[in-house]
């Protein structure tokens, strides 16, 4: 089965994007390029990643060369140019988590879903990522799935987490 992320995209959304771009453009009148980051955030919030058509659209509306938009979108690790799974699993490799064994947790996630860090499963369910300090060092090792924090994760718990998320997604799409 293939899982599809629910997107907020709609003709109205594109209109609202244009309004947002116009607003950012006005705010950054002296340096339009500075409007790029907030606009790209806006796009990513909707799609979960930044699709090619949005890059082209943003470039046109903002008047910034498309190659430059691609450069910015690919520079910041927060932005993704490829579609994400429904669940983005971020395993913290920050110092606190690392010394408490988060590498083994990451390895286990990768093994279970058969992906390397940064990749997504072909069924569109999971994307796995390495993260740097998520600001919850007291609960190390920390894993975040979308915006839910899992504290003190051990490799042994990984299969359970995967199973639970899979069941959740199946229930939702049923």
């Amino acid at each position, binding site marked *: 089965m293939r899982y599809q992320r629910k997107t907020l995209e709609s003709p109205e959304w594109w209109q609202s994007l244009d309004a947002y771009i116009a607003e950012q453009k006005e705010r950054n009148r002296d340096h*339009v390029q500075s409007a790029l980051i907030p606009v790209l955030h806006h796009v990513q919030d909707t799609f979960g990643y930044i699709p090619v058509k949005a*890059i*082209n659209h943003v470039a046109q509306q903002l008047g*910034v060369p498309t190659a*430059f938009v691609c450069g910015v979108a*690919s520079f910041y690790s927060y932005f993704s140019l490829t579609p994400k799974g429904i669940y983005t699993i971020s395993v913290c490799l920050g110092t606190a988590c690392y010394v408490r064994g988060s590498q083994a947790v990451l390895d286990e996630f990768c093994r279970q879903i058969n992906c390397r860090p940064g990749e997504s499963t072909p069924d569109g369910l999971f994307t796995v990522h390495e993260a740097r300090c998520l600001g919850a060092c007291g609960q190390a090792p920390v894993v975040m799935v979308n915006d839910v924090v899992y504290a003190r994760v051990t490799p042994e718990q990984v299969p359970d987490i995967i199973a639970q998320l899979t069941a959740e997604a199946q229930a939702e799409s049923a």
Partner: protein
Amino acid sequence: MSDVTLTIDGVSATVPRGTTIMQAADTVGIRIPRLCYHPRLSIEGACRVCVVEVEGARNLVASCHYPAEDGMVVRTHTPEILQLRRDIVELLLDNHPEDCNTCERDGNCELQRLAYATGIRERLFAGERKHYEKDNLGPAIIRDPDKCILCGRCVRVCGEIQEVGCLGQVNRGFKTVVMPAHDAPMVETVCTGCGQCVNVCPTAAFLEKDATADLMKAIEDPEMIVVSQMAPSVRAAIGEAFGEAPGKAYEGEIYAAMRRIGVDYVFDTQFSADLTIMEEGAEFVKKLAEGGPLPNITSCCPTWVKYCETFHPNLLHLLSTAKSPMSMQGAMVKTYWAEKMGIDPSRIFSLAVMCCTCKKFEATRPELFVNGLPAVDRVLTTREFAWLLRNYGIDFTHLQPEEADNPLGESTGAGVIFGATGGVTEAALRTAYYLLFQKDLPADALNFEQVRGLKGVREATLDFEGTAVRLAVVHGLSNANEVLDRLIAGGEYHWIEVMGCPGGCVGGGGQPYAGANAVPLDECLLAQRASALYNLDAAREIRCSHHNPSIQRLYQEYLGDPLGHKAHELLHTYYYPRVPMGVRPQEAQV
């Protein structure tokens, strides 16, 4: 502005405030090694090759962007600096293919020179190397990311001087690559093919697509008749490729060299430059008489045409419909001349040697074909042609000058100056005056100094027997935008000349690389090349296109009248808006 005085390696230098340490050092004969820096582009500060020590500063500083200050004491070659510079260049080499022997830029590579100058004599480490596909899908420009050292000059020339913005630096760190948006092949992007990325690249990350092999095959094919033409600017710069000082024109030598390599008929693009003037001059006069559409915007530069199609589709109706000299020449070779000679046009291999990379693209435009055949089969750049001569062992600078063949080899001074920015305008004015008033300009009024020179935008209002003719002449596409913005805002012009490359064709993307002591796009160099052309013009007996006897015969025997039916069919073309639509940078990104 006040001056500052600083000491560099014990030498005192006084420079205006705001000058960088590097520029200050240049004024006292200290040439700090540099790589990403280019005097006509914004400062990137990426390579750190130019580091120097400033007394009292905590770290070494990049001299290309650090401002000189009063009382500053700078050292440029302490042991620590020399070591660091070498390390920096060595790191670049670690991620660079070691294929100098077979590289197109061998002997003409800034990285190679720098490696030598910094004293790298052996390679100690073999690091991880990037590897990406080469993009050689297009007809004009090849992109080879493996050779790229990320100095960013191409990105800046494309965005700042040309306002095309085709290239960007994508990804981060070790994975950074210079590429067009979405890693598209160059031919599918807003790239205009001007080749300035090739000109400013310190290595071989951008090159023109090689056409020499096809030419060599045609030469050896007994069935094929090879007919050549060469652009005005080729003669103004080819000497540099053989180590001669810039500014000397080689004309007869090129005709001779063409014959030596086996070209059967040696013609000259300048013939059709005169022809272009006949058509475009008539078109201009007609537009003036009929009140529009004005201004008439020149269309002989293929880079500008593609730029206009991509970025200014609303202005396409203003472009002159006259084909470029190269395409007119090809069309005449495969019709008029072929008929005259009784040769089947499909047996003709039409060769053009051009100062331009984009002409390779122009030659592939289907609407420029004549009777289903390309007007020009292959385009060689000046560089490729110079290489071919070396390959054939021709001692170019010592050749005895020869004459071009006729009838498509005869040209006037007006045809010669096409190669310099403003030249087309000047040539057109000489003929337009004649067409308007049925008399020639006095011999001492043939030079239009107002449109000469290298100022980015030249505007002038001429008094043509009481009629004011408002002109603008621009070179470099950012300068074009300056005038076009004024035009769009309601500015009135009768004539606008646009050349895509800085300096016009003399600064084309296919010209010889700047040598060891020169800088690409250097204004002095461009001015010297241009003056070579103006000198040729001044020395000509006939300096107006409409007095070219071979042109007159061509109209009598074959074409009829300028803008007539036949001329329209063979010498005029059309333009169309292109996708992807370009996005012009809205502001100078300084």
